[in-house]
């Protein structure tokens, strides 16, 4: 018996497909923030196989964020390129995506790009309606900063300015 040929005919095991999918997903970038991967943002809820179909659960960050559709498209493309058989991408609304799910590495990348990562956790979400502790300037670390606008170039970010070094910077909002 030719075991090699037999192996070729056997479709990859479910666990292997899941592992390959995670590998493919690791390369998908956020379309708005270069270098940041969607895994850094914690956008993937699950990867599973059911009845031969591989399913990826994807969380939208903000309901109206135009990047959501681009990300969805990029994920589908990455899975297709990885050639791991039939797959679907499901949008997962519940539980709602939280900025708490941004990984430590993701936070470091944001800071490196001059975007201050969210500080608080969602446990304090009701506190959002009260005044913020001003985030420290990513350039000079001064805490003498002010909010210029609650909304920046994308819904997920607010615009701040450092009163010490006078540089503007973005703050990734806690949500």
């Amino acid at each position: 018996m030719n075991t090699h040929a037999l192996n070729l005919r056997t479709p990859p095991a479910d666990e292997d497909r899941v592992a390959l999918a995670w590998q493919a997903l690791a390369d998908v970038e956020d379309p708005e923030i270069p270098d940041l991967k969607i895994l850094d943002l914690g956008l993937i809820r699950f990867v599973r196989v059911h009845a031969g179909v591989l399913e990826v659960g994807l969380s939208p960050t903000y309901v109206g964020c135009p990047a959501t559709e681009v990300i969805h498209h990029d994920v589908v493309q990455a899975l297709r390129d990885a050639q791991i058989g039939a797959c679907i991408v499901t949008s997962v609304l519940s539980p709602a995506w939280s900025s708490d799910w941004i990984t430590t590495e993701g936070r470091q990348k944001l800071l490196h790009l001059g975007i201050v990562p969210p500080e608080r956790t969602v446990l304090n979400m009701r506190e959002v309606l009260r005044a913020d502790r001003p985030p420290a300037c990513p350039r000079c670390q001064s805490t003498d900063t002010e909010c210029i606008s609650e909304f920046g170039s994308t819904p997920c970010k607010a615009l701040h300015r450092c009163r010490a070094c006078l540089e503007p910077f973005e703050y990734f909002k806690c949500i």
Partner: protein
Amino acid sequence: MSAAAVDSKALFRYVLRLGDLSLVLGQRLGEWVGHAPALEEDLGLANIALDLIGQARLLLSYAGEIEGCGRSEDDIAYLREQGEYLNPVLAEQPNGDFGQTIVRQLLIDAFQLELYERMAASTDERLAAIAAKSVKETRYHLRYSGSWLVRLGDGTEKSHALAQSALDRLWPYTVELFAEDDLDRTMADCGVAPRLAEMHTAWTMRLDELLAQATLKRPGDRAHSWHGKRGQHSEHLGYILAEMQYLQRAHPGARW
């Protein structure tokens, strides 16, 4: 009563009310793009509009599924007549000056916050998920409109006068938000929607706190004769729909 026992026609109309509120207000805010007093406000209003359109998409898609006639979110948004829109008339009021836009926004942000916070526990799982997602964004909307209300009200003599006149003009429309009709009652009875009376109390408390900070006076309630929630609108909605629906009416089925 379980969510499964909810009458689907009633649920369809109720979800349209929620979706139309977000859609019409989002479309209104979009009119500010390129015209706001400063670039920051242009971005702020446009971002809130985006969130609202995002909510509307989720809600109108769901309405289409409940209806079961194969209508998509776009079919529902672009191909209904004015009388089929079920938003409260406050949402369609013109932008006016920046103060009027901020007051209208604040009144609706505070309403949606009370709504979504409670609806996150709805017996309807889909609505619960949409509400839990939307409430997070709505908090930022209220933070934006609330802080502007305080700046305008507690600002110069002129900004105070304009903010108070906007409040006086728009306040009567808020009565419709909380006027419970049979549909609201049915939805609350089966746990799909929160009780409007309960929301009204919390909303008023929050408003009073903000108005006090803004040194503005809360106008008295009056009997209202608006029934946007039943499809009877002010003259303003027609103009919004004419602009919003033009492309789909002129070029049916056009896609990006």
